[in-house]
């Protein structure tokens, strides 16, 4: 890279939160980095590392009464941003530096059309007339890959899909041809195939407009694909800064190495297909169908149906992990719910030799012990008003009512130890734990009943990469020890490659392809599977 004057230069920036006079907590410590014009920089770190805070500080988007900058400077084209007055700062926001956010669902205002929101910066910063602004807005929508931009411009945000909304966000950001685009986890909330489309779009636009892009992300695949230079942050400090290849091939800092090693590797109990074929089948489902009627009109007549799960069959053997992969809306979670009889459906479900569809809800209750769930969001899956002990003991009280409280306590402590939590946590409430710890509690709640099958619904998607790996290792170990079968539902192919023996790929409620993990990854038969694999950024080109 040739030495040019940097577009943005951050020097010794520190950020502290808290009101004046109170104890302030410093969350960013002396961070320094530069961005050259047209450069693609990635800021990588786990949640709480201060990467978003740093980026937001560049635009001074924090609440000024709560935020304090003890030292440091942010120079943008030789102007000092931290001491700029509000009017001048507003001119820079949107005009010179634009930002796009993680959540396309909430970063667009639901009561205005996308046209209104897109023309606003044009009228504000470029003094365009209404007609000219609308024309330019349609061009921008067209450029960001919105089909039929002339009609779409009058749509409200809820009428667009997640990917389309993120395209609109990019169009808004591009409206004034900024010199720097800050993208805060722009693809995290999107499906893999949409993710790769958005990244491609960002790349194209970056080249076309010649702007610098600062990408904030936790996803190392994304970094490798997109960035030219990488800054790694940990606990508010910038621990390493290097060119992309140098960083991946020869990481200098311990934390960077730790991050790179956190990418899931195959940790499941490896057993070949023939051997597994001898294991007994615990759960068998035949042509499961789950249709939701679509009703309309005054009399709510049925005018059609959504085929959430359409004729899907599977066999799950004891001690085996079966991965169900698909994008959002593919019916994978609904299918899982059907198997656990938490969602009404047609088709046959057999548990060992019992026909689950034939027995009543009441007769099902004792069998429930054998089917447990671990959810994606560890914040909503634990009741906030129950202590850890109450949460874990609930199932014991139902399924082992004959045991005494002391016996339950012994069993709970044993399980807590197994999932790597400690005794003192029994009386605490879920909000006192981190995401990873909460997920361990959820796993403990499932495992304490010694179930035969656990349905894991995106169990690691809400967790940081290093925590993700620990949780996956815990799950693999529990399987080895207790021979539990996992039904592993995820969109994350890296995780499923590490965990599954067999994989089912679902799309629009039906199975597209299924097979052994190795076979499926090395030699996918269906075009959709190939597209999915390519999109999840394992392979370039």
């Amino acid at each position: 890279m040739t030495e040019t004057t940097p577009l943005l230069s951050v020097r010794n920036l520190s950020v502290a939160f808290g009101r004046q006079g109170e104890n302030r907590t410093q969350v960013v410590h002396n961070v320094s980095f530069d961005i050259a014009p047209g450069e693609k920089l990635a800021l990588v770190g786990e949640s709480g590392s201060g990467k978003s805070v740093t980026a937001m500080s560049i635009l001074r988007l924090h609440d000024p009464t709560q935020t304090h900058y003890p030292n440091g400077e942010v120079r943008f084209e030789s102007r000092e941003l931290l001491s700029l007055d509000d009017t001048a700062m507003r001119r820079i926001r949107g005009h010179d530096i634009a930002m796009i956010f993680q959540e396309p669902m909430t970063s667009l205002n639901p009561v205005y059309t996308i046209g209104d929101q897109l023309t606003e910066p044009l009228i504000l910063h470029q003094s365009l007339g209404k007609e000219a602004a609308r024309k330019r807005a349609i061009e921008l929508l067209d450029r960001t890959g919105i089909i039929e931009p002339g009609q779409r411009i009058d749509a409200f945000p809820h009428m667009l899909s997640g990917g389309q909304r993120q395209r609109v966000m990019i169009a808004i950001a591009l409206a004034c041809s900024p010199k720097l685009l800050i993208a805060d986890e722009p693809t995290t909330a999107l499906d893999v195939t949409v993710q790769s489309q958005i990244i491609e779009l960002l790349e194209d636009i970056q080249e076309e407009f010649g702007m610098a892009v600062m990408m904030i992300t936790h996803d190392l695949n994304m970094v490798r694909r997109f960035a030219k230079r990488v800054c790694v942050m940990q606990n508010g400090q910038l621990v390493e800064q290097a060119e992309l290849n140098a960083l991946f091939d020869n990481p200098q800092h311990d934390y960077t190495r730790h991050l790179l090693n956190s990418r899931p590797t195959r940790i499941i109990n490896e057993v070949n297909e023939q051997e597994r074929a001898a294991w007994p089948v615990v759960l068998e489902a035949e042509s499961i169908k789950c249709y939701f009627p679509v009703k309309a009109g005054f009399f709510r007549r049925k005018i059609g149906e959504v085929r959430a799960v359409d004729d899907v069959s599977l066999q799950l053997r004891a001690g085996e992990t079966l991965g169900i992969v698909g994008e959002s809306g593919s019916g994978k979670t609904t299918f899982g719910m059907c198997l656990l009889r938490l969602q009404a459906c047609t088709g046959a479900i057999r548990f060992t030799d019992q026909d689950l569809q034939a027995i009543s809800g009441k007769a099902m209750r004792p069998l429930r012990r054998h089917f447990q769930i671990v959810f994606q969001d560890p914040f909503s899956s634990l009741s906030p008003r129950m202590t850890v002990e109450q949460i874990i003991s609930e199932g014991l009280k139902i399924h082992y009512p004959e045991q005494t409280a002391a016996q339950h306590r012994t069993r709970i402590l044993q399980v807590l130890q197994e999932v790597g939590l400690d005794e003192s946590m029994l009386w605490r409430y879920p909000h006192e734990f981190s995401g990873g710890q909460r997920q361990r509690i959820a796993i403990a709640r499932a495992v304490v009943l010694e179930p035969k099958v656990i349905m894991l619904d995106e169990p690691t998607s809400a967790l940081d990469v290093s925590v993700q790996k620990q949780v996956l290792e815990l799950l693999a170990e529990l399987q080895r020890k207790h021979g539990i079968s996992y039904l592993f539902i995820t969109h994350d192919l890296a995780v499923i490659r590490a965990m599954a023996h067999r994989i089912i790929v679902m799309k629009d409620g039906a199975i597209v392809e299924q097979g052994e993990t190795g076979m499926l990854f090395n030699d996918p038969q269906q075009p959709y599977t190939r597209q999915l694999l390519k999109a999840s950024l394992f392979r370039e080109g």
Partner: protein
Amino acid sequence: MTKPVQNPNAFTQRAWRRFKANRRGYVSLWIFAILFVISLFAEVISNDKPLLVYYESSFYFPLFKSYPETAFGGDFDTETDYLDPHVRKLLNKGDNWVIYPLNSYNYNTINYFTLHPNPAPPSAENLLGTDDRGRDVLARLIYGFRLSVLFAFVLTLIGVVAGVVAGALQGYLGGRFDLAAQRLIEIWGSMPELYLLIIFASIFQPSVLLLIILLSLFGWMGLADYVRAEFLRGRNMDYVTAARAMGVSDHSIMFRHLLPNSLTPVITFLPFRISGAIMALTSLDYLGLGVPPTTPSLGELLSQGKENIVAWWLSLTTFGVLVGTLMLLTFIGEALREALDIRRG
């Protein structure tokens, strides 16, 4: 294998600690508790019958037993009027002695022996004066406070239980049941409450029980809506699905998982409901639709204060008692809300 561990932070202990941390609410609770406990023993504090009489070498308990005046050497066979100066003279003669309550009037005692016209201003005899019928204001305030608070507690309890149950069922069952119940609430809620009270007041003999029944019939709806909304939100949460997957029964899910997480509106509105109930009773009495006139009631005193605007001891004292009670209840409620929020330390 493991020794039984004592839970160092039981929920109630933690809640109590948080409650104490709110000084204002904590002090309010003490003041209110003392006042309320005292008022429960109103018969001993403020009564026209002596607590104990020692008359000619034997003890008498007029509080529990009625004695004719002849028992104390009087002229009549009717029950003794202990306020009669003649009777008092007899009871204090020689070795005889009497222990009177702190305030020697009952809420319905009429002081026939006052030197002032009624309503009489505060004096050594009637500490806060008398009302327009010559009844002691202090006695009526003590009994009125007790009645108002008890009335409010009962009304709130009924309203909360009915509201929570109705809201919980609607929210959890949803569907047709919810639809039907919602329409019923809309119809029920559009009935003119005040007119019904006026009508019922003219049909039936007005009484505290009738008021509780009538106000309860309408009081549960406001809360039911909030609880229903909380249940609707809660029943799709993952922890509820997890509980269902565990085989937890419906009513356990409702009461163990959903209810504790739906209590925010209940607890938030609790102090307001209690003070609202006190205000409801007071205003109905003020309008003359409430309890019968012999019952000690703050509203009736207020309405007397309005009629006799110069008799400041009527309106001012009642106003003081009302404001004091409502303020204490609000502060306690505020502290209670903070105490039950487990997210606080």
